[in-house]
């Protein structure tokens, strides 16, 4: 679908996110904290027919009290043009550390959700997604 011009543009500058640029984005967002697996549940369909709108839910196990709550949740991807997807900030007023949105996926890839807790610890979950119709790079239809 993408024309030669699009391909060249990608080839001549590092436009696509890679696992490395994703790691950079993760460090920019959370600093040097160690990320442990667990406590986070990232819910994405394993096979996506249309990468333009993929329902995505993140839920984090947390009592959401003033002393023990989730401060922020970030979603990252490896192969979209940019590694960031969304970053949310919340606090004890949320009651429940969960949210849903719809995201774009440009290719089959691993999507990662990271939660920052009030005690400074970070927890994550990964989901591998297969995308049959990619988003972001297709040509305009009009």
């Amino acid at each position, binding site marked *: 679908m*993408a*024309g030669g*011009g*699009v391909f060249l543009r990608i080839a001549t500058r590092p*436009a696509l996110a890679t696992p490395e640029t994703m790691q950079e984005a993760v460090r920019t967002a959370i600093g040097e904290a160690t990320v442990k697996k667990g406590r986070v549940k990232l819910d994405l369909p394993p096979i996506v027919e249309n990468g*333009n*709108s*993929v329902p995505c839910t993140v839920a984090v196990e947390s009592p959401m009290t003033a002393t023990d709550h989730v401060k922020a949740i970030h979603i990252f*991807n490896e192969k*979209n*043009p*940019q590694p*960031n*997807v*969304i*970053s*949310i*900030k*919340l*606090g004890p*007023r*949320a*009651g*429940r550390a*969960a*949210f*849903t*949105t*719809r*995201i*774009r*996926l440009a290719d089959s890839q691993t999507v990662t959700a990271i939660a920052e807790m009030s005690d400074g610890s970070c927890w994550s979950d990964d989901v591998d997604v297969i995308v049959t119709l990619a*988003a*972001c*790079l*297709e*040509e*305009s239809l*009009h």
Partner: protein
Amino acid sequence: MARALIHVPPSAKRGEVIEIKTLISHVMETGYRIGVTGQPIPRDIIEDFVCTYNGEEVFRAKLYPAIAANPFISFFTIATERGTIAFSWTDQHGATQVQTAAITVE
């Protein structure tokens, strides 16, 4: 400006965790697509979403081009008191749209 849809329960019990759903019509143009002229279509996205409950911020999101067109966000908050829940979306040009919903808490 853009059309926004919000769902907030009209009433809740004090301390109850309520779900809020929001959707705003917006192209969320990534800036990575090529138009019919062969030129890239300029980036045009909503970057910030903020929800305040009687003036106090309860939820904030920073959106990137990887958020689908017509951004939908649902999240939770605790119904603490009667009042107004306000939502604001700000695009990359600084234009802000605000919408509010009233909630009754028993």
